[in-house]
């Protein structure tokens, strides 16, 4: 295929911003049009549930400042793509305008999963996904409120940490047996739960909310639980997962299955259309298994791959996803995808500077790790595991088991196995 002259990017998050930046960095001087439904230029979404929520400051911008002589990127804010036509290679915008493209990147992101309970549309039931959501939540937290959080995932616990740090009483409601079941090991999760409890946060696990209790005026007054109890709350924050915004792609006839299906080059079923970020589902191996990730670092890397691939570079995306969370002064990092039924081996101690590291093994193979420390001491251990996984190393299960508890010894073993390659 010939090199493109016109690239359109649909979306205004990390993937869209990184792809646009990367196209220019790779020397693409043609037209780039970015169409975003958001009313502000791309910003660092990861801070919305952490530092920005705590400080009340707007998140840092991601939009690149291009050097002199590099063509501007056409950024259309507050604009929705209503449809696109792969055969004609054109987009239709909410203002009726049509834009043609040689290559299209779908970086549509995801939507928070909505709560479907009686009272769920009450004033005070909030979600946290974008700039506007964060402003609304922040303004509610400026008053003296009781906060209930539905969903004990990373977003829920990050909001719990911010809200309790701001002086609010916080209840966390989690339907599963424990919080962070999809993200980290039990020992890392319980370290965080202890920290939250020290800050006065109350947890209700293995119980499902049945309704949002409201005042006659339609304001939230609490969350009803399956056991009949009522948790008093003025603000309810719902963090029960995200749903990829893949409908537009499905309507245009692209392959979609809980996410837009892409190959290792981040190309969709249409050879001119790429996709990256939370909206995609991509192959994890050669036998057809696929995965959808909901994290910052994969979104950025996929965007880089898509940008290079659409210019004809030979690249492919394969990644051991890495992520982090800040809660109070605790720092959490994860690498790989934590499987719920893994064999877990713990090393170190969360009360020491190097922190606590959990390795997750499936069928005797290391597949993921999670760690927590006060300050960023855990980072080096996580990075070692990440390098081992990226390099395709298969640490020997017996060696990992023999070092159980001893983080320093594990580090030496992983370093040796990396050098051996």
């Amino acid at each position, binding site marked *: 295929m010939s090199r493109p002259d016109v690239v359109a990017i649909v979306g205004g998050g990390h993937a869209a911003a990184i792809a646009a930046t990367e196209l220019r960095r790779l020397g693409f001087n043609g037209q780039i049009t970015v169409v975003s439904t958001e009313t502000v230029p791309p910003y660092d979404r990861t801070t919305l549930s952490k*530092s920005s929520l705590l400080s009340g400051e707007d998140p840092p911008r991601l939009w690149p400042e291009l050097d002199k002589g590099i063509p501007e990127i056409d950024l259309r804010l507050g604009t929705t793509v209503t449809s696109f036509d792969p055969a004609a290679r054109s987009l239709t915008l909410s203002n009726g305008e049509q834009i043609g493209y040689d290559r299209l990147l779908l970086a549509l992101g995801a939507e928070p999963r909505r709560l479907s309970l009686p009272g769920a549309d009450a004033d005070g039931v909030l979600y946290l996904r974008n700039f506007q959501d964060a402003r609304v939540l922040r303004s509610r937290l400026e008053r003296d409120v009781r906060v209930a959080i539905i969903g004990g995932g990373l977003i829920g616990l990050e909001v719990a940490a911010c809200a309790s740090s701001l002086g609010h009483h916080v209840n966390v409601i989690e339907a599963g047996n424990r919080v962070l079941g999809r993200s980290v090991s039990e020992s890392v999760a319980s370290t965080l739960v202890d920290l939250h409890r020290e800050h006065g946060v109350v947890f209700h696990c293995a119980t499902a909310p049945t309704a949002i209790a409201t005042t006659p005026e339609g304001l939230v007054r609490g969350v009803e639980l399956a056991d009949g109890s009522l948790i008093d709350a003025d603000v309810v924050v719902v963090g029960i997962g995200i749903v990829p915004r893949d409908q537009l792609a499905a309507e245009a006839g692209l392959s979609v299955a809980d996410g837009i299906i892409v190959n290792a080059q981040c190309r969709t079923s249409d050879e001119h259309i790429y996709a990256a970020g939370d909206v995609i589902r991509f192959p994890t191996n050669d036998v057809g298994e696929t995965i959808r990730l909901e994290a910052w670092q994969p979104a*950025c890397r996929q965007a880089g791959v898509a940008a290079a691939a659409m210019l004809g570079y030979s690249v492919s995306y394969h990644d051991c996803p890495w992520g982090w969370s800040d809660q109070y002064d605790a720092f959490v990092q994860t690498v790989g995808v934590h499987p719920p039924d893994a064999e877990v081996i713990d090393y170190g101690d969360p009360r020491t500077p190097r922190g606590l590291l959990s390795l997750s093994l499936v069928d005797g193979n290391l597949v993921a790790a999670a760690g927590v420390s006060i300050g960023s001491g855990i980072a080096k251990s996580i990075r070692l595991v990440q390098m081992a996984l990226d390099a395709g190393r298969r640490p020997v299960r017996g060696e990992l088991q023999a070092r159980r508890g001893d983080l320093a010894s594990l580090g030496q073993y992983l370093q040796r196995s990396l050098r051996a390659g």
Partner: protein
Amino acid sequence: MTTLEQWVRVASTDDLEEDDVIEIVVDNLTLALYRTRDGYFATDGICTHEHARLCEGFVFDNVIECPKHQGRFDVRSGKARGAPAHISLRTYPVRVTGTDLEISIEAKWPASEP
């Protein structure tokens, strides 16, 4: 150069292995001191992205990777090398006198930046 540079002993050459970083504090400045295959280098010790100590990061190929969000900087020039780091680090001259590592806290910004 008419400025009289002041050199301060901050560490010994034995304090660093290759691809290693330590934190040093000079005149209330928190700095990171590196040893790579190309020699000894010093930069600001705190990441320009969010508060994190670079001494807890990884050094490879003359790059320091921040422990917190894996932003990258070239330790020789201080230049930001990878998202989410966009703002470069200041660098400081390092010299070896015998087994002493000395730095000058005359900060240098990377060329092409203010």
